[in-house]
């Protein structure tokens, strides 16, 4: 090894040490603010801690055994699946439609895309409250409008499927612009030459979209779907504000059910066990997303 390269190796070593020093504070902060609470959640999930009665110091798998036989948990998983499935599908379809439409608009009308972005800026509590007002029959302009024609719009929030529909609508309203933004960016990366070439070959616009544009959009669509799916596991403000999990338990998604068990039934240990379950799902999906990311960048 020549002196020069030895020197360089030493310099690289110095440099790497400097880099590590820049990462350490973040690792400490993440450990304190995130890892410690998560370890706490895990510990609680094996305990018998109750907010009022405290703990008898028993540790074991009791909570997880209870989970398996919990009908309310199964119900909450179905609710979560329905909210995620319909919500994410609606957001991706509407987002893609609007993005494709907006991409064709050029000139001064381009500013119109701002109108589609506003719902994304509204905080979720405000989204929930605005849609709560729109789904309140005595107040809603939609009901008033249809009343003019003698049509009575049903009260969505008081029926099982209506309440799920209402939450899906509110969620879709505020989140389709996210899908739109990402699809729009992906569309801009697709060369217009491809469309033209297909048109010259006599392909119809719809066929061009299905066989050329859509496959090229797939990575973006996958990303949007995954991100929205993960967020939909965290449904809370809309359920809390619009339905409180009701009517009955028909909109009690799993995340909300964990809240109910912990803070309404004071059953902290059991709530933590439900949270652990959700956490495992998030861990699996985020692992997949991280792998996907790695592949995209290499």
């Amino acid at each position, binding site marked *: 090894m020549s002196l020069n390269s030895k020197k360089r190796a030493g310099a690289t070593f110095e440099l790497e040490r400097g880099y590590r020093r820049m990462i350490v504070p*973040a690792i400490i902060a993440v450990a304190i603010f995130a890892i410690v609470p998560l370890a706490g959640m895990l510990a609680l999930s094996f305990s018998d801690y109750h907010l009022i009665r405290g703990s008898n110091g028993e540790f074991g798998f009791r909570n997880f055994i209870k989970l398996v036989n919990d009908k309310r948990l199964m119900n909450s998983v179905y609710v979560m699946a329905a909210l995620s499935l319909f919500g994410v599908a609606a957001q991706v379809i509407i987002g893609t439609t609007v993005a494709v439409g907006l991409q064709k608009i050029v000139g001064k009308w381009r500013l119109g895309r701002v109108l589609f972005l506003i719902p994304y800026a*509204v*905080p979720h509590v*405000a989204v929930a409250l605005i849609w709560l007002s729109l789904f309140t029959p005595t107040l809603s302009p939609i009901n008033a409008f249809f009343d003019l024609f003698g049509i009575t719009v049903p009260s969505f929030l008081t029926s099982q499927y209506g309440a799920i529909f209402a939450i899906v609508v509110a969620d879709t309203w505020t989140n389709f612009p996210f899908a739109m933004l990402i699809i729009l*960016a992906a569309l801009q990366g697709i060369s217009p030459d491809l469309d033209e070439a297909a048109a010259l070959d006599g392909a119809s616009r719809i066929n061009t979209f299905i066989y050329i544009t859509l496959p090229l959009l797939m990575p973006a669509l996958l990303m949007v779907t995954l991100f929205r799916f993960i967020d939909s596991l965290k449904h809370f403000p809309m359920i809390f504000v619009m339905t409180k999990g009701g009517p009955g338990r028909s909109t009690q998604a799993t*995340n909300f059910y964990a809240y109910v068990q912990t803070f309404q039934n004071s059953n*902290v240990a059991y709530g933590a066990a439900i949270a652990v379950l959700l956490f495992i799902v998030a861990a699996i999906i985020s692992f997949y997303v991280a792998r996907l990311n790695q592949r995209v960048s290499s």
Partner: protein
Amino acid sequence: MIDRSPEYRLKKAVGVTMMLVLLLFAAVPTLWALLLSVRTPDTIFEPIWESPLAVTLDNFFKITRSDFPSALMNSFITAGLSTFFSMLVGVPAGFALAKSRVSGKFIASWVLLLLRMAPPVGFVIPLFLAYVNAGLIDTYTGLVFAYMTLTLPLIVWSMWNSFSQVPDELIEAAIMDGASLGKAFLLVALPAARPGAVAAAILGFLVAWNDFFYALIITRSSTTTAPVAVMNFISYDSVDWASIAVASIALTLPILPLMAIANRYIVQSLSGAVKG
């Protein structure tokens, strides 16, 4: 190629109609909130076409006499502080992750993603118990700490992404010229990644500003944030819809300029690939 066949026109009409319907869907709730905010209390349940002139600005003055403005202030303070501290720790970390050859980058990216995706109910249960014991319930410190679980992973992830786009040669050249790593970071890399840093700070502020769940659990009356304080307009027997509309507007307005600045970075930082 200009196509003006009837078939083309029909398709175009269908497309335009579809866009207009979707525009209606996007715009009506916002317009409705604006309308609610200026309706007089006694006409609020009447259709607008029956009393189109019953509008007032009183609702805006009324809300200034409630607790809502101080809750807005709390939101600004806690979202601002948690973003500030997360930037302080997260920006250098993002730089180092993007430029160094440390091992475990995949694990780091997984942990960062997981923390952003994990359901907050998992964090909030142990935090709540710890805060009750440490006397941190209903304090700024407690809320800022809780928000850092949201803002820090997001900011490290975004900055990792931004610094990856700064050419390695730029930093290598600065170090060749005798600059220390700290100087290369502050004087070369950071200015080059400034738009990304602005966007990361905005995104961090937005997640803290939008939070409802943490504030609901770990604050009481004195540090309650605006998203939780809005719920005070709903009482057991009545709902103050006009105030709710005003409050919703007050919650959204500060975000609009931030979104306008950050919007194209939102795309990058949410879906952008992290280069190893």
